[in-house]
């Protein structure tokens, strides 16, 4: 058989882009092009989902900006991402934290699913 498709995207995969998990507070440094100039913009929020694999892999970051919930989906291996910082870790019992969308107020930014693990269960 011929070479699998994944071989042709290998060189576009970025290393060290798997350092965060669902539930982590992340700061995504993205390159933004404004006319000729390029600057770094930081999107700060909670990673609520990771999807796909290989070059197709994306992650969703949710934050509350000016009282409005904002979600951005980034391709994990996007060259537009300068770096991804993790500033808060948490242990979540789910792969997708879509229930965060229902939350309002203070609870919207709280991740509290640490309980089970702390108790050693």
């Amino acid at each position, binding site marked *: 058989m*011929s*070479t*699998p*498709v*994944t*071989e*042709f*995207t290998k060189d*576009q995969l970025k290393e060290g882009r798997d350092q965060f998990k669902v539930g982590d507070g992340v700061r995504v440094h993205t*390159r933004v092009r404004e006319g000729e100039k390029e600057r770094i913009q930081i999107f700060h929020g909670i990673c609520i989902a990771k999807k796909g694999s*290989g*070059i*197709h892999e994306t992650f969703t970051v949710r934050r509350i900006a000016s009282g409005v919930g904002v979600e951005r989906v980034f*391709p994990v*291996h*996007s*060259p*537009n991402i300068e770096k991804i910082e993790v500033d808060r870790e948490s242990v979540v019992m789910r792969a997708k934290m879509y229930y965060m969308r229902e939350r309002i107020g203070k609870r919207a930014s709280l991740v509290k699913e640490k309980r089970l693990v702390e108790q050693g269960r």
Partner: protein
Amino acid sequence: MSFLLIGKKIGMTQVFDENNRLLPVTVVEAGPCPVTQVKTVEKDGYAAVQIGFGVQKEQRLSEPEKGHLAKAGVDPVRVLREFRLAEGESYEPGETLTVEKFAEGDKVDVVAVSKGKGFQGVVKRYNFGGGQATHGSMTHRRGGSYGFAQDPGHIIKGKKMPGHMGHRRRTVQNLRIVGVRPEDNVLLVKGSLPGPNGSLVTVRPAKKTRKSAA
């Protein structure tokens, strides 16, 4: 410039372009295509070039095929295709066409046989609306009226009816080449192509590019 490359559809994936956007691409293993015969107006009545593609066991070729390929000095190939020559172009038997004929940014047409869908009704085949689902309706996925009554007394030709869908030769025009990988004989073509993975495709320079782009 007229030529074509025979290839195999490998599958679809995505790549980042120069603006860092993710583009959907189809990976096509195209060529190398050795020239197996050059047809001339004097000898054959028209000017064309016949090329081959793929690797074939020698035992699977018929004797006439073996002789035909031996004449051009070409190893056994799986398929042969030909394309017409424009004025003032020439190829030699034994010469090989590769993906390097194409460059990134070129527009191409891709010809392939679409996926066979079998015998399908009009809803799937021609996007008919179908009838009501409930309220006592009995025309769920029917095609409605098929025509008139005693006058004219027959169904008009070309009436869309259920039948075999897919497995037709289809051409997709003006696809952009996103990448050329000569080391793997691979073209990355933006968008989707007809047919299942592993099927035969032919890639040629686009016939109808917009003038501003050309």
